[in-house]
């Protein structure tokens, strides 16, 4: 599973950072940093990543399944 960030949608609420700090963080300018951008999410972090996708109120995170 991969998670894509749709940057124009991101408003920097940081809810994803709160539920999945191992994957997402906001830098000092409020820009989202994605630790696995363009990469597969490690299996043990998939549930956490999914929770971060759900918690985003502006749908800036998109789940891409492998092979799609």
């Amino acid at each position: 599973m991969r998670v894509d960030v749709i940057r124009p949608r991101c408003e920097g609420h940081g809810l994803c950072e709160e539920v999945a700090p191992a994957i997402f963080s906001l830098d000092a300018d409020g820009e989202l940093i994605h630790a696995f951008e363009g990469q597969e999410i490690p299996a043990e972090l998939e549930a956490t990543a999914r929770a971060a996708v759900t918690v985003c109120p502006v749908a800036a995170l998109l789940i891409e399944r492998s092979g799609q």
Partner: protein
Amino acid sequence: MTDLHRIVIVGGSIAAVTAVDSLRSMGYSGELVVLGAETGRPYARPPLSKGLLNGVSDSESCILQVDDSSADFRSGACAVDLDRHDSQVILADGERVPFDGLIVATGARARRIGQPNQNEKVVRTLGDSLSLREVMRTSDSMIIVGAGFLAFEIATAAARAGLTVTIVSRSTPLRAIAGPHLAKLVIDAARQAGVDFVTSAAGVRLVGHERITGVEVDDGTTLTADLVITAAGCLPNVEWLASAFDVSNGLVVDERMRVAPRIVAAGDVASWRGPGRSHPRRTPLWMSAIAQARAASASLLQLDPIPMPAQYAWTEVFGLDVKIAGTIPPRVSPVVIDGSFAERRALVTWTGGESGAAAAVNYHLPIARLKALARQTRETMSV
């Protein structure tokens, strides 16, 4: 972990979707049915009065990403009764849906102030927001009845679309939820954008039927506008539970979101007795719905309790990006940690509330740190 084989979730919004994710990630592998009353896909409500109404985002970006294989999602399935004796949810068409475990997540609806035969407009559903956005294009003026952040979010979108906007409320808006200082900051920003404020302590009467043309205020005068919107809070959808529980004060849950054995609740519908609260209260906020759905899921599966995070809310009004952790005590002055209200960029805290509170206005700060600040405020206070 439990002997539950079939869990039914009544509701189709963020609390229901989070409950599905939570139950599955907590290891529940039994049957899972989600009964949503609305038609269409589950969607997020925060953008309805923010990005969507402003026209900066589209309806597609409000749709929640749901894993269809994780549960049987049924839309247009409106629960009308609960048979506790036989453990069945009864739908409007008479169908009975049996359950071993039940999560009540029926949310809330907009509170209306008019008569049933009046075509009163509110912003609560995706349809409400899309139709308001459309009709704003051909309107010149709007009256908003309300005193909360929703009223100001609608006003922000309307002013941006070029409408003249009047906010009508019983008392000074926002004071009860944001305290006088933060309220003044937001009200001043709205005034600068041309918004008028009218106080009508005795409330208002909506004028018109098929189309609401204005409001009569308490001095007897009638204000008119092309559009009249009610933003007067929300009411819990508990009527369908009336034969099963006493819901005269809402659906009361304990600190772990439990209603009765094998029945839990989460989201806007639930009146929650959290730590520090003298009586149960609903917390109709996005992050509360998510936290409560996780806690309710853990309770239903009889797992260890999940700690409830501090309350968190945000709004975007008249160029002010406001994030609030905790509950702001209305009669306490804030302490400015950094920035200032004058420069419209500030990090502030309050002591003396039930939880401690902190707010960031146009101030970037990770939410975890804002919450920590609110928590420290409370701890300092109790020393």
